[in-house]
């Protein structure tokens, strides 16, 4: 924690940003104390979206908790499902067939692609870009959500992963539609890049703002693109090699300055890497079952024990910690929310910056309040 100077309350101005605010990505409140235009103190207040997710999961069966995980990070429902399914599979020792793993990677990378595109749009909107980048990003996202709807039945709350695989197989023609979307993806990312990355106004507003060193990021428990923007080479897909990620060739970008511009560029570069992974996975997907036939979904009673399943979600490390006592309900169910943990150092990042920068820093960390508050 940085040392805060004594505050002279006759000079400073207390502003409450939120909870209703166009730029706070959800119901999130920041009590900011300003000295002129500069921030001298920032206290985040959250909990406006708390929905007792962990308690609900502890009073319901393992299968019943799966649709609730959709609603955690509601922009990336399928990766939430995947992390939870991973945790239960570790707990109960369930294997996943190969076709299911390929499908998991495909829908997971589609989720990452639409999340990063949406983030570029939201960040441009925070900067005052009047929605142009957002609507272009949503054009890409619409096509991906259409793919999800034809596969899972719902555009967002997919409820698609099951213990030991996926809920249902790919419908006829889905692979061709997915390949068409992937072919267009580079062009749409090019447009976003041409609009955003060379723009001098964006460079002036994002470079040098909210710089986070690698050491502080590691100590703060950061993960995901924010950590990599600070120069730390840590991607759980490479570290844990969960699923079949070790079969695909993809690079992990690293930043240098750890400021908002690097964080934005991380998302853009990772989106391009996701397109690469998608091309490989869509080309190599084998035939086979999509769920382990020996795995029980309804009435699953894992043996007593504990397990921690984590994935490299689009926001960071999303983990589920489960303790089972042998019954059909978890004894303890805990979500490690990347958005909340990435907000730990928000005050430190914002002190000394201007008020306009606070929104930009918050936007570049990429939070979803469903995950912060659960």
């Amino acid at each position: 924690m940085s040392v805060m100077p004594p505050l002279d309350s006759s000079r400073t101005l207390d502003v409450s940003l939120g909870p209703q605010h166009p730029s706070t990505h959800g119901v999130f409140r920041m009590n900011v104390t300003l000295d002129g235009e500069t921030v001298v103190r920032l206290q985040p207040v959250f909990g406006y979206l708390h929905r007792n997710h962990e308690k609900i999961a502890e009073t319901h069966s393992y299968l019943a908790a799966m649709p609730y995980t959709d609603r955690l990070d509601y922009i990336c429902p399928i990766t939430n499902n995947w992390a939870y399914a991973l945790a239960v599979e570790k707990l109960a020792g369930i294997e996943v067939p190969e076709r299911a793993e390929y499908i998991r990677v495909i829908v997971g990378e589609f989720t990452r692609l639409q999340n990063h595109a949406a983030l570029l749009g939201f960040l441009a909107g925070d900067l005052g870009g009047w929605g142009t980048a957002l609507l272009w990003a949503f054009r890409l996202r619409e096509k991906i959500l259409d793919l999800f709807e034809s596969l899972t039945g719902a555009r967002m709350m997919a409820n698609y992963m099951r213990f030991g695989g996926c809920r249902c197989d790919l419908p006829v023609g889905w692979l061709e539609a997915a390949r068409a979307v992937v072919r267009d993806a580079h062009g749409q990312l090019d447009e976003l890049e041409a609009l955003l990355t060379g723009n001098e106004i964006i460079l002036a507003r994002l470079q040098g703002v909210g710089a986070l060193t690698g050491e502080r990021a590691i100590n703060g428990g950061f993960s995901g693109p924010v950590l990599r923007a600070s120069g730390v080479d840590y991607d759980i897909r490479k570290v844990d090699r969960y699923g079949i990620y070790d079969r695909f060739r993809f690079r992990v970008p690293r930043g240098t300055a750890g400021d908002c511009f690097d964080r934005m560029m991380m998302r853009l570069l990772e989106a391009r890497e996701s397109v690469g992974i998608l091309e490989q996975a869509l080309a190599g997907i084998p035939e086979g079952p999509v769920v382990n036939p020996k795995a029980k979904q309804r009435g699953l009673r894992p043996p007593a024990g504990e397990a921690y399943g984590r994935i490299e979600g689009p926001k960071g490390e999303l983990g589920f910690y489960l303790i089972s006592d042998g019954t059909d309900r978890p004894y303890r169910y805990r979500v490690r929310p990347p958005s909340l943990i990435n907000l730990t150092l928000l005050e430190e990042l914002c002190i000394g910056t201007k008020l306009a920068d606070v929104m930009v820093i918050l936007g570049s960390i990429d939070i979803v309040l469903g995950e912060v508050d659960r």
Partner: protein
Amino acid sequence: MNEQKTSRWSESFAGRLLSGLRFPGAGLVKGLAVTARNFVGSYFEKDRLLTELYPEQRPRLPENSRSFPFLIYDGNDPEAGMRCVSCKICEKECPPQCIYIVQDRDAAGKALKRPRVFNIDISVCMSCQICVEVCPFESIRMDQVFEASSYDRFGSLVLTKRDLLKSNEYYHGIHPTEAAETDARIEADRKKKEAAAAAKAAKAAETAKAAAEKKEAPAA
């Protein structure tokens, strides 16, 4: 920073000219060019405008799209052809507990294999489809009706058995592939049961014949 330029715009002359610009302010010019291209393109390129002009244009729902559950009946009579046997598994497994079932009883009080009351509160239902997955009798499926708003929160948003019962033909209309698979499964089950019943009947006939022969033999 950008390794893969695989779009037609980047490879076109204008794209390469603009991306090679390096004077101060070039980024702003590039942005303006991309916006102009989108403006012109929105009139000529079909896939740019993704807006569906609802309600003049009906939304194109994919086959698997789901909104709220409904019950299936075979034949023409909803009550007689209803597949649900009131096993209450969906009520138990539903995560938000939005299903309410009361089993039917006959005049003597014996339980019948049909529900008397089957209510789903769609203001609570989160369309998770778990009831469909756990039903052993292929009797509850997901509908595609999404225009279900009403002014009355507690009355009109609780669907009763009568509201929920829809025919198998309707099911074929909205989810053809799934309905065909379901029908094939039901057919296969029925054939298996018939074969088992036939085998059992044949075995019983044989045992009876053997018993009859045995009875005759000591008599003989």
